[in-house]
């Protein structure tokens, strides 16, 4: 399952849980677990897209709108790429 999730993510270059769940015929919660396991093992890297202005801009009037995350993004790590290349 983890291998399949990793391959689908690499193929689609996106994570759409409902699509992975449908393709692998597993529950959404399992897709979540799978992605978390892949992150924990270092096959996928979770990225932060919300800017971090806390220290630099404590007086900035836009500080509250600054720290939000519009889109969650990930990268397949070198470990993940190597693994996929072997298969």
């Amino acid at each position, binding site marked *: 399952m983890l291998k399949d999730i990793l391959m689908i993510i690499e193929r689609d270059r996106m994570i759409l849980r409902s699509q992975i769940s449908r393709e692998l015929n597993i529950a959404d919660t399992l897709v979540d*677990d799978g992605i978390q396991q892949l992150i924990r093992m270092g*096959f996928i890297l979770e990225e932060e*897209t919300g800017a971090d202005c806390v220290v630099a801009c404590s007086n900035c009037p836009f500080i509250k709108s600054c720290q939000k995350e*519009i*889109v969650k993004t990930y990268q397949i790590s070198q470990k993940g790429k*190597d693994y996929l290349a072997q298969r």
Partner: protein
Amino acid sequence: MRKGTIALVGNPNSGKTSLFNALTGANHYVGNWPGVTVEKKEGFFEFEGEEYHVVDLPGTYSLGAFSEDEVIARNFILSEEAEVIIDVVDANNFERNLYLTTQLLEMGQKVVIALNMVDEAEKKDIFFDIEALSKKLGISVVPTVATRGTGLEDLIRRAVFVLNEGEVVKNPLRYDEVIEHHIEHVEEFLKEEELPFPLRWVALKVVEGDQALIESLLESEISEQAKTEIRNFARYHSSDNFELEIIDTRYRLTHEIAKGTVSRPEVQKVTLSDKIDKFVTNKFFGIPIFAAIMFVVFQLTFVIGEDLLGGAVASLVEHFGGWLERFLTLVSAPAWLISFMADGVINGVGAVVEFVPVITVLYLLLGFLEDSGYMARAAYIWDDLMRKFGLQGKAFVSMIIGFGCNVPGIMSARTLDNKKDRMITTLINPFMSCGAKLPIYSVFIAAFFPEHGGIVLFSLYFLGILIAMLMAKLFSKTLFKGESSYFIMELPPYRTPGAKNVLRNMWDNVYGFLKRAGTTVFAVVTLVWVLAVLPGSVEPYSQHSILGQIGTFIAPIFRYAGFGGWQEAVALFAGLPAKEAVVGTLGMLYAGQYVEEGSMLVNALQQNFTSLTALSYMVMTLLYTPCAAVLGTVKKETNSFGWTIFLALYTFAIGWLFAVAIFQIGSLLGFS
């Protein structure tokens, strides 16, 4: 006399604590696990005259060593203090919960499953073949509803039976040949050792590369030869990804167990979200749909924010200004104070505050799109196009953030993992129309294009994106060559936007806007006012004032763009500390000079600009040098004065070129 200890283990929210409470009633006490702050709940119950000790372990999804809860649960189970484990499995999330069960069986424990919340599962048409399930797993499975006490007696009976007479079941998991070979190899060199845990489990964990267990073995009393073998194994197989294979096998087993033992309604093959995505993320329709949505956003922003509410707020500000001026005159305030308050504060800062409704509506609508899950799709559909322009789609995320304020837009570029993408994203972000530019567009649109507010606003935002992408292409072909890195974007399911999130997003932006109006804009307007009324010997706000002379000196730069007046030139430079100050400065400098009544700034602009020069001026403000805060951020992020100066100059040049082009081409074509 206590007969034995039973441990409760399960995923968070599996109903484990309800089961513990139902089993022990009032006979329980709460403490802490040794050395940590995690709560430890213990209690006892009586069954057929015997007393049984119950320990409620922390909720966990697995039994690795990756969190405090996992370590506590794992260590307690392996300590064999508990003679039997009740594994509480949420019937609604069966497969996910079963992952933990597979690990318990691998540990060689006596396990009974409490299949909890079966009533809720049945309501969702999820049914279990308990007998088949029990047979596949090789352990007792008892359906329960812990909150109602259903199935409890049966569960206790089974647990007590297993505790007294049951045997550890055979581990149902067999890994592929390579892994099994390595497990056997590790078992071979550990079989003579005194291990604290079952041999196969220890061997499996060594193969899996479980660092916590490996370290504890290396610190234990096992022989030096065994320690050397463990070290060698870990070193030689560190890149073999056995952990992935092992975890994958466990998931495969849970899937196989569920197959044939659980019946559930067919999962809807294509959801509404999928149907929407088919169009919204389509290669050909995606960007036109995005453009259409943004057009509606800008149209609504202008119609509601400016046409419906803007006039009322402007009138309120002007009435307040009039009242303040009369009051100050009545209390015989000095003339300079009256001038400062009326011309400087009310006409300057007030002119900015008048645009709060526009800001409010725009960020309300953008917040709605963000919270619905659409903005993630927008970034996704732009990925291909961005790549053609030498960037990656995540740069579009920075650009979207830049629509609020370029400072966080540029700061978010630090998450891009190669320098090329980071630098290009930083250098193009100022072309995004931030909230501070909105009052400038709004006042010019109100003066010259009131019938076409939405389309003009939309065109300005898109022109910014277009120029940003063209510059990205130019930079990627010249200054920053190389490939853009790929990334994976998560598309959340569509959802109804939550009022709280949307309103908070709106308020954060309105608050930021008001705070800047009250601080930076106020300071700029004050400085401009001082320069406009000095020296005292000349007519205030005239060309002979200090400000007038500065403006007259720089105004020729903009002659070819059609707005060569000193006031317009000064206003552009006043916008360098904060863009809102452009409107504030124009409001102050034009104050009361041309207008009898009504919206003063709008009427003054109509007498100083034509539609063509207004367009040229708006494009200049869209593209020219960003504000000081943005330049400061660029310096900080690039750690280079050179790039900061480059950004300030090249954006000014681009703004000037486009403004001149619009005016000159427009004039040639006969527009005025």
